[in-house]
């Protein structure tokens, strides 16, 4: 399949782009931040996402969803990125949905309708340290009665404090560093023994550190099979990493476009600064880096949609490259804006903050380069 959007996909983009730029542009983020909103995103907007069908993009048609793929999810995410829209779309409608697709019918029957309706937020409790290392999962899930008792700590749980369910990776066997022995659990928000330490992050999203103190869950909370959680976890991570990459294409493109516009307007030394060749070359180089990111992301989306065995390699390359390119875009963006780029009043700094969080989410460029090698 050719590496550009099909006519149907262009139509979707033509729906998503104006919807987000009208309803959730950067000033939407600002207003949530400035009123110290405690959810970290707009639940009303999330409901609109559901009404427009966005939350069901990856849910199979047999479950009432649109049964579309990662190219389509990526279209939404790129526009989320471009507008810096705070949204649980990536965790809930992309990563969690893919994990649940690899889970059992009961979990799907419980959660897909809620996600479709915009009535559920799902958070991901994977990381246990400052850096993303899912295979190093050490959190313990010991058998207890009909189910399991979970004990341990998770961090960087985005939207955790408002989530209706948490997908939690824990160890039922093996030892830290091994892929086997991990089990993925769907833990409802009202499970007892779970405490949350919530903070606003640099990009104004809300994130929780979650302590599990003997949290009891039933056996039917297991996503997929016991000890074989690496399967659904991989689905979750593939979708999450690629989705974050698509969002970074949006963040980086937004920052780049804004910066190039600025270069065409700002005058110093008697001319528009975009006439300076060194800035022209840096802008052209940046464009090339962003185009590379865009290319690997759509290629990886096609491979993942085709269930191609190369998908994992290409997703790692996509996350590494999108992270690197988007980071360059925001750094060049702030520098080329000069002094005003440092002010809160201008948007470019907000792009830099979002880039940092997205680069870190699901593993940074260094982590993914290491996977590729």
């Amino acid at each position, binding site marked *: 399949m050719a590496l550009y959007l099909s006519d149907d996909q262009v139509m979707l983009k033509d729906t998503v782009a104006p919807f987000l730029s009208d309803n959730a542009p950067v000033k939407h983020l600002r207003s949530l931040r400035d009123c110290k909103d405690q959810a970290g995103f707009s639940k009303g907007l999330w409901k609109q996402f559901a009404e427009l069908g966005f939350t069901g993009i990856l849910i199979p048609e047999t479950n009432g969803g649109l049964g579309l793929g990662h190219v389509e999810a990526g279209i939404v995410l790129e526009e989320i990125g471009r507008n810096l829209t705070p949204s649980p779309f990536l965790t809930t409608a992309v990563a969690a949905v893919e994990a649940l697709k690899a889970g059992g019918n009961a979990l799907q029957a419980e959660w897909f309708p809620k996600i479709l309706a915009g009535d559920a937020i799902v958070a991901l409790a994977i990381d246990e340290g400052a850096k993303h290392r899912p295979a190093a999962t050490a959190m313990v899930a010991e058998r207890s009665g009909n189910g399991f008792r979970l004990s341990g700590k998770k961090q960087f749980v985005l939207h955790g404090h408002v989530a209706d369910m948490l997908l939690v990776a824990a160890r039922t066997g093996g030892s830290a560093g091994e892929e086997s022995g991990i089990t993925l659990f769907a833990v409802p928000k009202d499970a007892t023994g779970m405490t949350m330490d919530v903070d606003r992050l640099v990009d104004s999203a809300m994130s929780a550190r979650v302590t599990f103190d003997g949290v009891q869950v039933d056996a039917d909370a297991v996503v997929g099979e016991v000890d074989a959680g690496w399967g659904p976890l991989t689905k979750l991570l593939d979708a999450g990493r690629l989705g974050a990459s698509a969002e970074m294409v949006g963040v980086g493109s937004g920052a780049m476009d804004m910066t190039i516009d600025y270069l*065409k307007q700002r005058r110093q030394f008697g001319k*528009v600064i975009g006439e300076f060749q060194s800035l022209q070359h840096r*802008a*052209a180089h940046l464009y090339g880096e962003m185009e590379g990111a865009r290319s690997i992301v759509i290629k990886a989306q096609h491979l993942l949609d085709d269930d191609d065995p190369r998908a994992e390699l290409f997703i790692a390359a996509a996350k590494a490259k999108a992270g690197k390119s988007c980071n360059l875009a925001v750094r060049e963006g702030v520098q080329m804006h000069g002094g005003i780029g440092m002010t809160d009043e201008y948007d470019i700094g907000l792009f830099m903050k979002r880039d940092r969080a997205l680069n870190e989410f699901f593993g940074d460029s260094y982590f993914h380069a290491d996977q590729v*090698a």
Partner: protein
Amino acid sequence: MSDLESFRAETRAWLEANCPPEMREPVRDEDDACWGGRNFKFKNPAQKQWLDTMAAKGWTVPDWPKAFGGGGLTAEETKALRSEMAKLGCRTPLMSFGIWMLGPALLKFGTEEQKLHYLPQIARGEIRWCQGYSEPGSGSDLVSLQTFGEDKGDHWNVNGQKIWTSYANHADWIFCLVRTDKTNKYQGISFLLFDMTTPGVTTKPILLISGNSPFCETFFDNVKVPKHQIVGELNRGWDVAKYLLGHEREMISAGGNGDGMASIGAAFPDSAATEPVLRAQMAMFDVETIVFRAHSERFMDEWKSGRAHPAYSNLMKYVGTELNKTRHELVMAAGGSDALEWESRRSKGGARPRSWLRTKANSIEGGTSEVMLNVVSKRILDMPGG
């Protein structure tokens, strides 16, 4: 089975039957390839047989019209042929600036008579062409060229000097940018064709830092070029050249083959295992390799369907050539002191360092990286000014 699928199956069977085993081995270097031409010495009978067999089917230029010596294949069929050839490891039967550069120019700007005359010679590998563009004072600023053709009624009398003429010492004919109007910079250049054996043409190979001499200086001393040997209109040769430069960049940018895409770390496991910082650099480079492959694929898909920006090939040329230079820097580092040997048999006569040095020209020939960035900035990003 669709038409394309049957074509693919038939092609595979035909290739298996007709491609000699020697022509399924990788090409070692440019000297090992088949370039054709009046004076070409075939390396072995298989090389000649493969050229003739393919030329007879029109498959040296599969997508050219049959009337001009081509195979008349559709774009999809051509792609299928190439992919089947790649799978079997079949060599390209003919390397040729005639195919890559002059052919496309003639197909777009040539007269019917010129097409019928020149294109079949190219397709059969009978005439080897070289390109006369750059001059010592006109590199990136090509349009400042000075080689002059004085109007003598039925011919031009050409005087001047070209540089970087690839394999001019082996070429039979040259396609050449010649100034035919000194009063008009852009619209004063014509695109002329002439025989390298014409009196007054001399060539002098340039020794490169790699130790090879693929390029020449070429001198024109009162060279007579008949008036019908012009492509396009008088004084509009720059249009032809611009078209070809775009075509060339497109070709270069599409040129990433599977071989160049392998992980460097995988190729040098010892260095990767013992040198953690080098391994990390290789890891980050491997990412770029995979990205560039996807980028090239996307570009070709967009280009073929008319979606790509007309100047996009300049970006691909920039990215691809810079990447290739970096690749060879890392290969040299991974190769360590083994890769410093210049003449030994073990090193195949210094194949690795010579290839490394060769890549340094990638970002100069066919438009420097600096010119590419200028073009991307002005034409794609619409940046202002000079």
